[in-house]
């Protein structure tokens, strides 16, 4: 029994920390938001260390419902890094907005726990548990600024639509159970692998499951909550939303499609190709007219999900490797960009218009440089990391003969370059109406520096990430 819990050690640590912080916050009268944030960050770091310790060969727990393999380990590491970075940036902002409470880091910890469960799910039941744990935490986080009408609206919208998506997912899972007779991924793989022609009921169930998960990654046409929630939620929450849950949901989608439904690749590939194309197109075109940078980042993330799905559509280990590389690079680009957005203040007041960045190159050259590097990288301009992310997914697509995807992907990345470069243009060529304050918060500056460095240096040191992603992708296929 003890041995059974070893793969769960990182999750157990996060859960224990979350509960302990909750107790700490409830029983201490003073404001404990600072301590709670620091401890939450430490807990995540600890969980990462434990994860590295326990990770290795494929291990299962809870009677096969929970799995820890190379793929799960890689995704969890990314999730923990993303959560830790975003939570460390949040405190300063929340304090300035007078909404700093200890619940924030606790909710983030619970959400992170849910995500870790998601990527380790090996059964539809554990999948649903992890997903809901994450989602419920995120609903609360979205409405965290409860005095703000915008934030409340965002939280409500997210909750209602999320509930709908969860319902679809559950319905799909029940259909699959009804037609295949099992919810275990391992058994599903065996059952579906044998049959020649796939049962329509199973396919319908799979479509519902995919719809539910596509909602979580905000892929078109299940994306419509994204801009409103991103804009309405407090910026640190948006930063968190934009990275960790995306990674978790993409990893989960990948595991579900490649693992139990690997034999149905020809069926789900059509859906993935479509939502990938639609996401890239909407992400590129809709962002052009935006004036709010958070809204712009929402469309940007939709577009990036579309690019990542290109790798998944290929359905090969090369494609999965591409997805993992893409999300890893996406993590650093987005965290860095949100670091800059969090630092956007005029005379102490937070601003989020693109025009407010005007003249940043003169008033704060280093911040402008970081933002410029990240924007060029997002546009996919070599030799920055964003180029390689696109390179690997498109290469996988071309190897899988998905020429349409590759070509449309190239074209939409050209369109998206327009709004990324516009930000650079605004920063470097427009005159500032009012200068932005200099960011004083060390964590934000550290995050900005780290992400810019990662993006800049990836070309020269791609080894660790490539090898890690390759091993993770192969672990998924070896199991199936």
């Amino acid at each position, binding site marked *: 029994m003890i041995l059974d819990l070893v793969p769960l050690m990182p999750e157990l640590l996060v859960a224990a920390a979350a509960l302990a912080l909750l107790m700490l916050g409830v029983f201490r009268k003073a404001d404990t938001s600072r301590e709670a944030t620091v401890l939450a960050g430490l807990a995540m770091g600890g969980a990462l260390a434990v994860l590295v310790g326990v990770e290795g060969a494929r291990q299962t727990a809870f009677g096969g419902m929970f799995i820890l393999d190379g793929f799960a380990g890689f995704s969890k590491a990314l999730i923990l890094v993303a959560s830790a970075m975003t939570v460390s940036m949040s405190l300063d902002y929340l304090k300035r907005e007078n909404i700093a409470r200890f619940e924030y880091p606790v909710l983030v910890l619970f959400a992170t726990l849910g995500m870790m469960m998601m990527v380790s799910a090996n059964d539809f039941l554990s999948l649903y548990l992890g997903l809901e744990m994450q989602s419920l935490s995120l609903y609360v986080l979205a409405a965290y600024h409860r005095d703000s009408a915008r934030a409340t609206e965002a939280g409500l919208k997210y909750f209602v639509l999320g509930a709908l998506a969860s319902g679809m997912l559950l319905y799909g899972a029940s259909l699959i159970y009804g037609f295949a007779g099992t919810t275990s991924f391992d058994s599903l793989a065996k059952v579906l692998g044998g049959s020649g022609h796939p049962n329509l009921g199973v396919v319908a169930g799979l479509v*519902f499951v995919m719809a539910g998960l596509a909602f979580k990654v905000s892929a078109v046409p299940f994306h419509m909550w994204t801009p409103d929630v991103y804009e309405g939620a407090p910026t640190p929450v948006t930063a968190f939303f934009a990275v960790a849950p995306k990674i978790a949901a993409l990893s989960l989608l990948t595991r579900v499609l490649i693992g139990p439904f690997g034999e149905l690749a020809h069926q789900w590939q059509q859906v993935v190709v479509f939502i990938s194309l639609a996401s890239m197109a909407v992400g590129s075109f*809709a962002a052009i007219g935006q004036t709010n940078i958070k809204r712009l980042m929402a469309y940007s993330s939709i577009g990036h999900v579309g690019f990542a799905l290109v790798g998944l559509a290929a359905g090969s280990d090369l494609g999965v490797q591409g997805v993992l590389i893409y999300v890893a690079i996406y993590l650093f680009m987005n965290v860095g960009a949100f670091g800059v957005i969090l630092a956007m203040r005029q005379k102490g007041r937070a601003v989020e218009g693109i025009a407010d960045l005007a003249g940043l190159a003169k008033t704060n050259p280093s911040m402008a440089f970081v933002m410029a590097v990240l924007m060029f990288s997002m546009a996919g301009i070599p030799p920055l990391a964003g180029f390689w992310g696109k390179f690997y997914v498109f290469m996988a697509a071309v190897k899988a003969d998905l020429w349409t995807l590759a070509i449309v992907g190239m074209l939409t990345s050209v369109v998206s370059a*327009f709004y990324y470069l516009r930000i650079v243009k605004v920063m470097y060529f427009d005159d500032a109406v009012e200068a932005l304050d200099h960011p004083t918060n060390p964590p934000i500056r550290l995050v900005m520096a780290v992400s810019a460095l990662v993006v800049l240096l990836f070309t020269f040191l791609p080894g660790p990430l490539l090898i890690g992603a390759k091993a993770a992708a192969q672990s998924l296929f070896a199991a199936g």
Partner: protein
Amino acid sequence: MMYVAAVFLPLLGSIAAGLFGRFIGDRGAQVVTTLLLGVSAALAVPIFTSVALEGHSVIVPVLHWIRSGSLDVSWALKFDTLTAVMMIVVTWVSFMVHVYSVGYMAHDRSIPRFMSYLSLFTFAMLMLVTSDNLVQLFFGWEGVGVASYLLIGFWYERPSACAAAIKAFVVNRVGDFGFALGIFGIFFLFDSVSFDTIFAAAPAKANTIVHFFGIDWNAITIVALLLFVGAMGKSAQIGLHTWLPDAMEGPTPVSALIHAATMVTAGVFMVARMSPLFELSNTALMVVTLVGAATAFFAATIGCVQNDIKRIIAYSTCSQLGYMFFGIGVSAYPAAIFHLFTHAFFKALLFLGAGSVIHAMSDEQDIRRMGGIWRHVKVTWALMWIGSLALAGIPFFAGYYSKDSILEAAFASHTLVGHFAFAMGIAAAFLTAFYSWRLLILVFHGKPRADERVMAHIHESPAIMIVPLMVLAAGAVFAGWLGRDMFVGHEEAGFWRSSIEVLPSHPAMEGMHHVPEWVSMAPLVVAGSGIALAYLMYVFAPSLPGWLAGSMRRVHLFLLNKWYFDELYDWLFVRPAFRLGRGLWQGGDGALIDGVGPDGVAAATRVIAQRVARLQSGYLYHYAFAMLIGVAAFISWYVFNAR
């Protein structure tokens, strides 16, 4: 060594003045270029003695240039009599012009640039005359074209100078295109571009037929005509002459050097150089004769009514080049080159003298605002008289010998075109004398028509400008008398040797010594009457020109507007080219490529962006509806695809 130095010293001077003009200064640039050219001119004399007089033709290899397949072009200097004559002309006139420019351009702001261009031109011209193959000749040919372009547009602040430079370049390009085609044709026929190989193989190919556009053509004729198109462009023959009068926008020393004495005669030189080829095609020679004769007459008629002192001389140059070409056309190559030789001296003298007049008249060029200045500029006046006497062909001056021999040769050719050329030449000689004396009388004699300020300022040019004029005047007086025997007299065969080839079936050179007495006298008589008419119209009956112009308004306008060649070309080529360009720019590039391409795509992107953004209504039920529709669509897709 001497041979290489003579050719490359001007290049050295050009580089020194052009690239290091800032360091050596105005004076340094003048001294370096003039000195190096002086050395080159001095070397040309022993070269002439050794090559032309003693008969030691040489080929000096310099380096291998291009080797590709059967094309083997080396860089070599060929010195035979023809080259030696040209070298004397080029280096000495150029040297005189360099010296003259020191005085004439004294107040200019970019003296090193000017001297550098002059030397660069001289180098290219020497390259042209010393080449031993067609590609190297083409290099020099284009080199002089570039230098001419740079020098015509030397005062680049003037729009008219820039326009003239471009015109010269473009019109020459038409000729050069023909020349290049001719070179391709020769390579196609002979598999070589080297003169010696071509000339050795030419007689064997005399009757080669090429099939082109469904018609059989004589290959040699085609090649010769194409080469002649190139010569027409460079030597401003009728049709491609329009650039030469405009080229007078350049500084006057340039007009003297490039557009009178040397570059414009490159066409004559080239055709003479290719004489073994032209001799094989009677058709080509006939065309050369007709074009030359027509140019000689046509340019002379225009020269009679022009009012710009430099333009009159420019048309005169055009006309004299016509003489040279019909000389060639009747196979009197030596007579043509002889005229080239003497013409270089007296025409350079006339141009530099005109420059001296312009200099004295505070940059006035219109002869209607001159007159009566001979007392103030006596030396220039005397020199201009010498130049005009030589040009008109008055006995014992240089032009007398050379022009007479061309006219006699034309008569002696005993062909129809030869006699046509003779008639045209006689008419042109009459007009030449007329416009020369019209110019002399209007500029130097009669009452002053310039305003007092200009008259008060008139002064003789400094010695540095006058001395070169005197050297050239000596040439204008003695060159004909001294050169007669060698060039066209009984020493002719021993002088030219193999550098010029004439078939026995073209006996004009021999026949010119046996023409009737009246043929020899005719040029002199018409020249005298031309002079007399000029005196009548501008001294004794000054109202006559105005009355004539009024009573024959159409003819006068026709001549004044240069036979409407510029207007015709403007209407025929320039405007359609502009229209085509504007159409392609606005319609093709602007509307079609930009409109459908970048602009169209960008506009479409903007529209799509607005539509997509409008979908984002903010209503919860819209979003939920979109999700449900999406799922329903996917399920339907599978349901209908499953069967």
